[in-house]
């Protein structure tokens, strides 16, 4: 029977390995964005879709500056750079930003000029200051500068259209168009900007790799000719690339060190190679099956799930360790007999650990579900390997050395057992409880994602320099405008813009970018045409034309003015394109972007009373989500404990089950308290760590509870080794650069250590060893 099961298991393992090999050949999709761990927003699907598109759009933007003390060399470098970037084929085609672009734009807008007025001009006309506008046009016609195009004046004697075009918002105020290229001066150099949009998502690994390597190659080619050229880059794709590199090297490092530590420990303690490679088989199969099934269900895997998965090494080794430690001692036994000794403990341990990890399924985080699948499958696979294969593989009869180890391991048990030390024992428990209570009383929580994500410092520094140079200060907050059609959307934006103008004057917000600035609503255009006719043409047109020496225009035959709509200009204005989201059947969606927002509360209020506009603050929303799920995780923890007590109760009876749960529960409760005393703030990731402390800690408690008197040293040795491996693998996490992983590791270490100290408390009546048949 056992052989049959073992063979069945072989088949399953081979299938899993084959699937994993296939996935690896295809190229495993790796997510590095922390936000991908978060669940979907529960709100309106249209809003969700809009936010996804917006963040995707923002993430595809790439900005590179080429700087040199000599402007001509900067321009040459930028041109070469642009050619190099376009040659990668990764970017969308970019319309030329230049004077020629401006002329083309003027041409596009010209037929509709009757309805177009800059905000300032409209206000001037409303105040009756038409003459100032007339004089301004005359000044340009007669004055020193001169007018670029005579045709312009002929059709537009008050030159309203150039004023309107000049009032269109520019995303980088310190940057201007100099001879066709975006240029800015700063830091003693002339900088020329190249902006592009990636065609695909910035988070696909192969895109990041290709872009970074092609870009670096082009830059080094330029620097070979002109070594003093300086380059600066900005774009989500670069941050993601750096994050992925760090994450992957970390995962490899952690796995590497964990495995090495486990290997050394096993070889040292067992003085045989057998336990080593057999343990490695059990661990390895656990990892392979875990990853394989995760990819089967999820198609892509998140880097955080991979890093957690690598810590399975510390967990799954517990089963093999317990099995192998049984061999210590004087009697000879067969491996199958030893397995029978530990089977109840291993089974119950695996069951409770699986319960602990499965709880993660209840959390609506896709990332956590990946971790849950990975871990549950990994645990079960390791467990199956230990109980089905290892007895066949382990040929040893007994292990004669190691009495020293057994005595040392037994030390902790002996400590708790001695009745004469009862006062000290109680004292220790009381001190721990008090410290924990004090810590818990002053515990504070951390949900702000910006504190949790560590972004490459080099790239952050470059970003700040670029923002200082260009004056670019785009914030993450924005307004989402929804309406049945574009005209209504534009009208709503105009209402909002009216309120935002006041806020701008008060310094609450900097620049605002709304589609209605580029294309006023038809009703606004109609009103503009009326104001121009009433307050400008009627009083001043005759004078204007006579001074300019122009004849009166014949009344045009089309009585109706043509009105501008979005379609006519959207292709020529990338800024506008970014603000318009794809149409849905129910209506249209626009975005209003902001810069330098300081008074978030006032900005939020600005939409009051305007239908269809909502203020979106992604960072606050994410922080809120993290807080919510931190509380979720604590609830899951309580639920987990309850389930485990039930499971254990079926074997031990509820009273004893309660006592068995004391070490793991104490670990879970005291760890955050003690860390809080050290100033550590409790975040969602600490809560996740506690769930695992529980799952692993209950293993130790069960091993201790199940062991009969004479075998308890072997059990304690196993528990000690298991603790050491867990401390090593999770302790390494505490060195991670990613805050989430670091805090997870810290809580794990503290929790596991506490459980280890208290584990013997789970045992049957200390001091009385039940003699049962071994």
């Amino acid at each position: 029977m056992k052989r049959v099961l073992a063979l069945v298991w072989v088949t399953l393992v081979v299938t899993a390995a084959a699937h994993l090999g296939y996935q690896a050949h295809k190229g495993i999709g790796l997510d590095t964005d922390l936000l991908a761990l978060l669940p979907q927003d529960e709100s309106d699907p249209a809003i969700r879709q809009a936010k996804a598109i917006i963040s995707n759009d923002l993430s595809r933007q790439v900005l590179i500056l080429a700087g040199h003390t000599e402007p001509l060399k900067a321009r040459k470098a930028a041109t070469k750079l642009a050619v190099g970037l376009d040659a990668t084929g990764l970017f969308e085609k970019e319309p030329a930003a230049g004077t020629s672009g401006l002329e083309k734009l003027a041409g596009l807008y010209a037929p509709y000029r009757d309805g177009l007025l800059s905000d300032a001009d409209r206000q001037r006309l409303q105040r009756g200051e038409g003459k100032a506008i007339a004089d301004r046009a005359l000044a340009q016609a007669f004055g020193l500068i001169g007018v670029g195009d005579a045709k312009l004046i002929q059709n537009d004697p008050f030159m309203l259209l150039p004023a309107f075009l000049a009032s269109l918002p520019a995303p980088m105020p310190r940057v201007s168009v100099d001879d066709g290229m975006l240029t800015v001066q700063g830091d003693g150099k002339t900088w020329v900007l190249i902006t592009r949009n990636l065609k695909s998502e910035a988070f696909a690994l192969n895109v990041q790799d290709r872009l970074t390597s092609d870009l670096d190659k082009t830059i080094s080619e330029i620097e070979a000719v002109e070594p003093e050229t300086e380059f600066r880059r900005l774009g989500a794709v670069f941050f993601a690339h750096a994050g992925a590199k760090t994450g992957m090297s970390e995962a490899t490092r952690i796995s590497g060190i964990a495995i090495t530590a486990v290997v050394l420990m096993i070889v040292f303690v067992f003085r045989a190679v057998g336990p080593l490679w057999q343990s490695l088989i059990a661990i390895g199969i656990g990892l392979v099956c875990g990853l394989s099934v995760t990819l089967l269900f999820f198609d892509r895997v998140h880097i955080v799930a991979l890093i957690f998965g690598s810590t399975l090494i510390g967990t799954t080794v517990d089963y093999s360790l317990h099995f192998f430690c049984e061999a210590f001692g004087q009697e000879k036994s067969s491996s199958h007999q030893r397995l029978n000794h530990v089977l109840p403990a291993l089974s119950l341990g695996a069951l409770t650990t699986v319960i602990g990890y499965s709880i993660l399924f209840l959390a609506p985080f896709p990332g956590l579900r990946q971790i849950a699948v990975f871990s549950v499958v990994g645990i079960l696979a390791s467990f199956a390997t230990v109980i089905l294969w290892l007895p066949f593989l382990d040929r040893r009869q007994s292990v004669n050395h190691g009495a020293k180890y057994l005595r040392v391991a037994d030390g902790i048990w002996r400590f708790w057992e001695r009745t004469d030390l009862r006062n000290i024992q109680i004292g220790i428990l009381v001190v721990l409880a008090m410290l924990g209570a004090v810590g818990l009383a002053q515990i504070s929580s951390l949900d702000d994602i910006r504190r949790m994500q560590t972004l490459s410092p080099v790239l952050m520094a470059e970003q700040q320099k670029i923002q200082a140079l260009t004056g670019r200060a785009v914030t993450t907050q924005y307004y989402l405008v929804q309406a049945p059609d574009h005209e209504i959307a534009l009208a709503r934006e105009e209402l909002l813009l009216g309120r935002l103008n006041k806020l701008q004057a008060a310094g609450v917000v900097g620049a605002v970018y709304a589609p209605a600035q580029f294309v006023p609503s038809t009703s606004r255009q109609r009103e503009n045409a009326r104001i121009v006719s009433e307050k400008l043409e009627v009083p001043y047109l005759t004078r204007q034309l006579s001074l300019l020496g122009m004849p009166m225009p014949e009344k045009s035959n089309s009585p109706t003015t043509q009105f501008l709509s979005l379609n006519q200009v959207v292709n020529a204005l990338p800024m506008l394109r970014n603000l318009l989201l794809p149409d849905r059947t129910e209506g249209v969606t626009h975005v209003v972007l902001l810069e330098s927002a300081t008074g978030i509360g006032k900005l939020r209020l600005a939409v009051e009373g305007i239908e269809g506009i909502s203020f979106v603050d992604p960072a606050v929303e994410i922080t809120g989500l993290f807080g919510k799920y931190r509380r979720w995780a604590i609830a899951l923890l309580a639920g987990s404990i309850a389930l485990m007590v039930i499971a254990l109760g079926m074997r031990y009876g509820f009273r004893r089950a309660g006592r068995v749960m004391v070490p793991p529960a104490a670990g879970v409760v005291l760890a955050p308290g003690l860390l809080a005393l050290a100033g550590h703030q409790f975040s969602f990731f600490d809560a996740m760590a506690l769930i695992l402390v529980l799952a692993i800690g209950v293993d130790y408690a069960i091993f201790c509870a199940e062991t009969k008197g004479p075998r308890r040293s072997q059990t304690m040795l196993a528990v000690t080794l298991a603790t050491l491996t867990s401390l090593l693998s999770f302790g390494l996490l505490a060195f991670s650069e990613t805050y989430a992983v670091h805090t997870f590791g810290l809580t794990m270490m503290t929790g596991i250590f506490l459980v280890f100290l208290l584990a013997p408390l789970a045992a049957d009546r200390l001091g009385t060893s039940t003699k049962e048949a071994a």
Partner: protein
Amino acid sequence: MRLSSFCLALVILIANFPAHAETTPVSIADGQVLRGEFSQERTLAGFKAPLKSTGDFVLSPSQGLIWRTRTPFQITTVISPTGLVQYAAGSEVLRLSASRMPVLSSFYELVSSALSGNQKALGDRFTVHQTTGTNGWRIDLTPRDDEASPPTFESVSVQGARFANEILILKPRGDRDKVTFSGQQLSTDPLSKDEAALLSGQSK
């Protein structure tokens, strides 16, 4: 470019003169101010008659240029290191800062180097053709081919004797500007308070 090229040509040629055997070369030193009157005739394609204006100007090499049109109505244009400002009938109608138009600050550097005798800067941007005659001299400038932008004017020619007397700018599409100067004087008197205020960028 249209602004810079015109102003550049204008200022440099008022201020920096080729050596001539019969004329003392005159260039403006620090502390000196050049004043004079101008008459501008702007011909725009499609317009029945050219736009004419007259006025006076004040040029100080380190501080800038004030161009005061008096007829047919008052327009004052001020170019200084901070940028360009225009006033019509006393109130401000246009303000361009040098940071928004980097061409203004590079133009300014060119002007100062030209005024100190650096002909090379002129030669970088234009092809210079110089002729001298009995009555004076004449310089023809054509802009060099710049890959990035189409030329904003086709040629500039300047005639003068002691000072520049006439500038003719030919622009594409048949537009042209003709500026005639008269009554030029170099003085060491300081600028008037109003003039100094204009050049420092404060509104009148």
